[in-house]
């Protein structure tokens, strides 16, 4: 990822933003305090309680995942944090500032659930437009757009209108627009939705790369495997309520079981191993060759096919 700093993500404006709130802790990037959203009809009658008293803190440099089934309040939370919705009660703070404050957006990148982009623009025009919205000078916009288009692998299609793009391509350019200002905080709403396994892997790699650069990432998804792969901490929402919050490793750790993986021992040693476990009072739940997951198999086949076009891949033969 580029380390180019845009003027908007520079030091002066954010510092002003931070200085304006004396309680601001620079290590807390996102904060929800008793955040509640109730949708009402025209007459003010309650229709849906989309979010109930959410308390949340996201720290600098972490990848945070919001999990939950459809309608659990994930997207509502993100929209409240972005100021696209106003809270019914409670507060949403970004960099210590109220979510409705426009200047906070200078340090934010947002990839919506579906890439809501102007389909009549080309990739270059799209990034140029969003660059202008960050008040970036022309030279910087051009450099940054070229860099990001290359990064998301769309150089070959940069002059095509987005209406001609596949869903995956639109998603990529959507990510590029979210990164145009080199943001400190990136909000990703269902980042892997609509992507093929290759695209999903690339998206996850990119999230990890951004994390390595010190960016804070807030993503929401209902694809649990994706969240598990990249998130440091997660919050699980259900029907607008926070049900679980913590580090992924801690939450997924099964304390009662032990997993041992060996390499290079013969099949005959299995019985001996079982005996040792039973001797110590343990119970063998499974002893077998590990299986790769479908995602890894698919990726290895694709990569091999790219390297050796026209040949059937080794991976496919093994599995077949």
């Amino acid at each position, binding site marked *: 990822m580029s380390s180019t700093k845009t003027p*908007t993500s520079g030091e002066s404006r954010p510092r002003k933003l931070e200085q304006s709130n004396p309680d601001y802790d620079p290590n807390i990037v996102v904060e929800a305090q008793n955040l509640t959203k109730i*949708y009402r009809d025209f007459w*003010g009658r309650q229709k849906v309680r989309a979010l109930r008293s959410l308390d949340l803190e996201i720290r600098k440099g972490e990848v945070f995942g919001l999990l939950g089934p459809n309608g659990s309040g994930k997207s509502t939370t993100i*929209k409240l944090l*972005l*100021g*696209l*919705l*106003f809270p*019914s009660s409670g507060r949403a703070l970004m960099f210590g500032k109220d979510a*409705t404050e*426009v*200047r906070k*957006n*200078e340090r*934010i990148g*947002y990839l*919506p659930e*579906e*890439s*809501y*982009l*102007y389909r*009549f*623009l080309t990739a270059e025009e799209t990034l140029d*437009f*969003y660059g*202008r*919205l*960050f*008040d970036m000078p022309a030279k910087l916009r051009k450099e940054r757009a070229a860099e990001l288009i290359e990064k998301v692998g769309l150089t070959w299609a940069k002059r095509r209108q987005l209406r001609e793009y596949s869903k995956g391509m639109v998603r990529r350019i*959507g990510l590029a*627009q979210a990164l145009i*200002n080199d943001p400190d905080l990136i909000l990703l709403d269902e980042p892997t939705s609509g992507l093929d396994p290759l695209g999903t892997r690339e998206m996850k790699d990119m999230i990890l790369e951004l994390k390595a650069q010190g960016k804070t990432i807030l993503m929401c998804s209902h694809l649990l495997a994706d969240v598990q792969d990249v998130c440091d901490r997660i919050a699980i929402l259900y029907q607008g309520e926070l049900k679980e919050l913590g580090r992924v490793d801690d939450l997924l750790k099964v304390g009662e079981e032990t997993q041992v993986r060996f390499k290079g021992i013969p099949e005959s040693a299995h019985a001996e191993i079982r005996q040792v476990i039973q001797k110590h009072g343990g119970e063998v739940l499974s002893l077998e060759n590990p299986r790769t997951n479908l995602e890894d198999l698919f990726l290895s086949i694709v990569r091999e096919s790219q390297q050796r076009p026209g040949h059937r891949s080794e991976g496919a033969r093994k599995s077949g």
Partner: protein
Amino acid sequence: MVVENFENFFAWLPSALYVFGLLGVAGIVLGVFFGYLVAAFRHGPFEAFYVVAQVVGGFFPDVFGTSPRRVFAIAKLSVKEALRRKVVLVTFAVFAIALLFGGWFMNAGVDNPDRNYVNFVLWGTQLLILFMGMLISAFSLPDDIKNRTIYTVVTKPVRATEIVFGRILGFVGLGTVLLALMGLLSFLFVWRGLSHNHQLVGNQDLSAFSEIDPNTRQSLSGGRVSENAILEGRTNIASGHLHSVELIEDTRLPGAPEPENKENIVSSKVLPDGKTVYQRVIVNPASGHTHEVTLDKDSAGNVSRINLGPATGYFRARVPAYANSLVFFDSDGSPNQRGIDVGREWSYRGYVDGGNAIRPNSLAKAELVFDNITPDRFENPDLLILEMTLSVFRTYKGDIEKRVIGSLQFESVPADPNTEPVFRSEVSLFETEEYNVQTIPVPRKLTGKMINPDGTIQREGDFDLFKDFAKDGLHRLKMIIRCEDRNQYLGLARADVYFRATDDLYWWNFVKGYLGIWAQLLVVVSMGVALSTFLSAPVAVIGTIVLILVGFTTTFIRQLAQPDASGGGPIESFWRLITQKNMEVDLEPGLQRTLMEQADTLLVNLLNSLTYIAPDFRRMNFSSFLTYGYSVDSSRLGVALLISIGFCLGLTILGYFCLKTREIAK
């Protein structure tokens, strides 16, 4: 041409700023009040104070944080979006098709066909461009919200001011380009539609001309000819009309300048008394234009061919030097602002009477006072052109062929009438030409008297119009118009009588006419964008249409809301209707009447206030100026532009607050 309001930019500006300020204060009060109500409904009465203060307090930082780059980015995007919608293309195509086939329905043979042409293109352009502006502006933001593309915009550091103003700028920019193209096409259409050539009937030389009956001074076909005509011919019919062509004798006094156009002089000779007689071929005007004549001559100096050039006189931008004031005097000589009411419903013109059998010497007159009558304003200061469109009201038919006679007199307006003499010209009579613009040449040298303050005559003779009559600081000149036919009336309004100053450039006047349409476009687009910040697209379109209708009928609504309207306001009128009391009957005093009057006052004031939600579109519409060939004065243009910019500003602020307080993702 009817002119009901004479704009004076600098006189208008203070009152306009006052009204604009009042509107601003009213808008702020109402906005804060409704904002508080909504916030109290959402958050409770106490937190509502904080919410309102936060929104209002954010206005100035947002305005000062507005970035031109972001505004232009949104403007550019709006242009692309509007082009993609194809509304612009369809508008242009409809206009082009209308022009292609419009020519079939234009009759060039009528009087002043240029009026039909110009009127057609101006109304067509105005209608289409305003309709297009309304559609693209009202649909843009709601579509962005519906498609959620706005999510990726408002999550950038973009102020609501930038979104609203950027969209207005983009749509107006696009409309400007379209308007310029339509203007250019219109100009070509009018020019091409009116250009035509004639040829003489018969030989193309003087042998095609016929004698004039010396007794009747009529042509052999019985038509009227000029006083000084000696031969007469006619052209073929082209564009539905023909012209009579005359050989005239133009006699000039010794020392007088030669005719400006020498191309049409057949011969000239000097008479024994020193006068010079030029024999010239002229084409008499028809259908509001004439043609230049050039003569080919052989080596002996005889005319071998008469050539008629292209039409001239269509493309005019007359600059009228209107009177600053018009005062009527009735038959007793007492001043009267409105003149005599002859019973016509349209009270635009006032009338002066020509006396009657009982009082043959009526003192009725109309006095017009002109300011700034200086030589530099006129193309030919030696011979001013006075143009008049007088109305005649006859109390008896008489000889219908005989025109009603009026008279003109000029007078100086001394700064101090007690010490300075007054110059008064002799009375000159004229025949009124009803329904036409009548042209009367006024020579610089006026014969008259110089009268002392005590009424004695200091000197008689010729005086200079500029140096003697209009000499004081304001260069003021008084003109007196009387009706000289008994029992007949002459009617006039302030705009009916004017001196014709040097013409404006026609193309520039055309541009000014289109600037008027541009001002209307700016207001319509601002309305569309502002309403679309809180309404759905179809509702925003309906809202914009309502505002446009209010704008076009502002004058009518304000007249309706006049406190002195006969029959009272709506409730009293309804009461009279159901109780069958006519408008003049006084209602019985009492509680009922008081209640009705109070309610009417409230309703009428409300109605009057409502007219301020939209600008008076008629003040931005210069169609009649271009149609009738008058220049749009800079005051009028300045007023129109400032009104439109003021409304654009107000609507931008309204749009800002609506967008800022709107939950985009709801």
